[in-house]
C-alpha cells in the first residue's frame, strides 16, 4: 500500500511537470486477483494505479509499440527486476533509448511489495548483478523434474503431447516483450521455413523456433506461459535456454544496456566438446 501511494504521488509529480507523457502501470482487473495494464495520462488515471503482489505481467513490451517513443518524450513504466532486464535488452538491441524510460521498480515477496531504488535502467545495475551472482534457483517444479528424468523418446512424446494442443494463436509471441519483430519468421513465406498450419508438426517447429529466438534474451518474466490459452509449460523451455547460455557462455540476459546479444557474439575459446 505504501509503495502504491508513493508511486501514485510520484506519477502525478512527473505528469504535472510534463516529465513523462504517460506511465504504464496496473489497475484492477475483471476479477479480484486480476490486474490489467493501465496507461496513465491524467491524475484521475493515476488514482486508478494499483500495485500489489498480483501485478505480475511484464509491461515492457508496450514500450516498443509503434510510434510510442518516436517523439522522444519520456514514458514511465512499472517494472519488476525481470522487466528492467527487458529494458536493458531492448536498449542493447537498439529498440529503444533507455533515457526515455522512467522506471517505477518494484518487487514482491509473498504479498509484500517493495519499491526498488532508482528511476533509470542503469540505476538498477547493482541489483541485476546481484541477481546474476545468485545462481538461478534449481526449480523445484515436479513436472520439470519429471521431464529431466525422461529419456529422449519420452521427452519427445511429452512435448509432442503438449504441442499437439497448441492452436498457434501466437499469444506467446505477442505477450513477449522480446518478440518485437514487425514480421515474424512464421509470417514470412518466401521461403516458408516452418509450416504455418497448426498440426503437431507445425506446432513443434514453431515452438522450437520461438524458444531459439529467445535463447539468451528471455528474462523469465513468464508472460508467454501465462498468456498461453492451452497451458503449454513454455517457462521450462525458456528457462532451459537461459540455463544453457548461463552455463556455457556466462550470459545472464539483460545485465546492461551495452550487453552483447549472446548469439551475435562469440568467444574464441567457447566450448566445442560436441563438435566432431
Amino acid at each position, binding site marked *: 500500500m505504501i509503495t502504491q501511494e508513493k508511486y501514485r504521488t510520484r506519477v502525478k509529480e512527473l505528469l504535472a511537470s510534463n516529465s513523462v507523457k504517460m506511465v504504464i502501470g496496473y489497475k484492477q482487473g*475483471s476479477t479480484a486477483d486480476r*490486474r490489467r495494464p493501465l496507461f496513465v495520462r491524467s491524475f484521475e488515471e493515476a488514482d486508478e494505479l494499483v500495485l500489489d503482489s498480483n501485478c505480475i*505481467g511484464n509491461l515492457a513490451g508496450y514500450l516498443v509499440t509503434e510510434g510510442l517513443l518516436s517523439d522522444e518524450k519520456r514514458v514511465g513504466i512499472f517494472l519488476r527486476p525481470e522487466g528492467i532486464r527487458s529494458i536493458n535488452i531492448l536498449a542493447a538491441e537498439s529498440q529503444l533509448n533507455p533515457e526515455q524510460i522512467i522506471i517505477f521498480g518494484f518487487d514482491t515477496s509473498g504479498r509484500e511489495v517493495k519499491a526498488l531504488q532508482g528511476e533509470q535502467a542503469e540505476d538498477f545495475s547493482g541489483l541485476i548483478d546481484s541477481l546474476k551472482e545468485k545462481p538461478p534457483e534449481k526449480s523445484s517444479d515436479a513436472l520439470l523434474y519429471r521431464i529431466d528424468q525422461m529419456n529422449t523418446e519420452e521427452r519427445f512424446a511429452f512435448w509432442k503431447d*503438449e504441442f499437439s494442443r497448441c492452436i498457434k494463436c501466437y499469444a506467446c509471441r505477442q*505477450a513477449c516483450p522480446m518478440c518485437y519483430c514487425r*514480421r515474424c519468421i512464421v509470417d514470412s513465406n518466401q521461403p516458408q521455413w516452418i509450416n504455418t*498450419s497448426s498440426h503437431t508438426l507445425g506446432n513443434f517447429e514453431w515452438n522450437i523456433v520461438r524458444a531459439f529466438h529467445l535463447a539468451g534474451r528471455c528474462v523469465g518474466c513468464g508472460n508467454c506461459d501465462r498468456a498461453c*490459452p492451452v*497451458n*503449454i509449460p513454455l517457462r521450462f523451455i525458456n528457462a532451459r535456454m537461459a540455463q544453457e547460455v548461463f552455463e556455457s557462455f556466462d550470459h545472464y540476459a539483460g545485465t546492461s544496456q551495452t550487453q552483447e546479444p549472446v548469439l551475435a557474439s562469440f568467444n574464441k575459446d567457447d566450448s566445442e566438446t560436441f563438435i566432431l
Partner: protein
Amino acid sequence: MTRILFSDKLDNCIARWRAAGLTVFGPVKTDTLSSYAAIEHASDFDFESVLPDRSIKDLFFPQTEPMLRYTIKKRAIDTEDFAPPNDKRIIFGARPCDASGLAIDDSLFGWDYKDEYWIQRRNESVIVSIACTKADDFCLCSSLNLAPDSSTGSDVLLRPLENNKGWVVEELTDRGHEAFLAIAELLQDGSDPIAPIAAVPEKFDLDTCVAWLQNHDNFESKFWKEISMRCIGCGSCTYLCPTCHCFDIQDEGDTYSGIRRKNWDSCSFALFTMHTSGHNPRATQSARWRQRIMHKFNYFPGKFNVNSCSGCGRCSRQCPVDMGITETLQKISTLQP
C-alpha cells in the same frame, strides 16, 4: 411427469449409442486443459467445470484441416480431395452457449456457397446440451438474449435435477428424437424437481450497444483506441471463440506434391488484411478490435439477423491482458449514442 435420464444409466446410454455407430463426445478435463473430446465411459465426462476451455467449434471447424492433395506430374496435375469425416456423432453435455454458437455459424457457412466441411459435420452430429447450473464472472449469455438454458442450436436439452442424479430430457429436433430412441427404454418418467439454472446477471444493455455501434459517427470515435490500447494482438480470443470463423488457406509441400489446408485465421493479426502492395485496410490494433466488435454486433446481425456472440465469455476469461467483449460492451453501453 417428465422423462428423466438418470446419471447411473449414462454408461448404458453411451454403450447403446456406441453400439448404434455413434461416436460419443463431451466435455473432458485433463491436468492441463478442458475441451470437448471423444469419450468411452460416463466417468470420462467433466460436468463440474463451468465450461470447457476450448469451444465446441473444434469439433466442427478444426484448427487445421487438409482440403486436397496435389501431385504434379510432367504435364498434368493430379488432385485428390479430402472429404470431411462422415462418422455419426453425439455431443453429450454441450453448454447451451456453445450450441448457440454452432447455430450462429450455420448461417454463415450455409450462406450462398455451402461449406461442406462445416455442413457435413453438422449433419452428422447430434447436440445434447445441458442447461448450466453454474456460471462464473465471465459468463454473459443473459446479456445477449440467451440464457443458461437456451435451446438454440441443440437437438436435445437436458435440465439437471436438483438432487444432481440426472437430467430432464427435452427433445427439440427430429435428429435429437432419433438419437434418444436408441436409449428410450433407459429413460424413466418422474417428477423430480429441476435444479435452478445459474444466475447470470445482465452485464450491459445490448440494444444500447448496438445503437451506438450502428451510429456511423462512432466508427472513428476515440473510444476504440482507448479500449484497445492494451490489446497485444494475439489471436487467442478469436481462436477460443465458438463463433469466430475466419480462416486461411495454405499450401504445404513442394513442387512435386503437397497438401492444401484450411487453417484458422484471426482478424486480430496485423497481416490478416494486409495487401501485397503494403496497404493495410486495418493497419492498427484498434481498427482490428473495432472490426471484431462491429462484426459480431453490427455487421453479422445486419446480414444474418443474429449476433455473432453466444456469451460464453471465453474471450475475457483467458485474455492475457484482461480485455474482452464484456468490458468493451459494458463501456459502450455507458456512452452517448
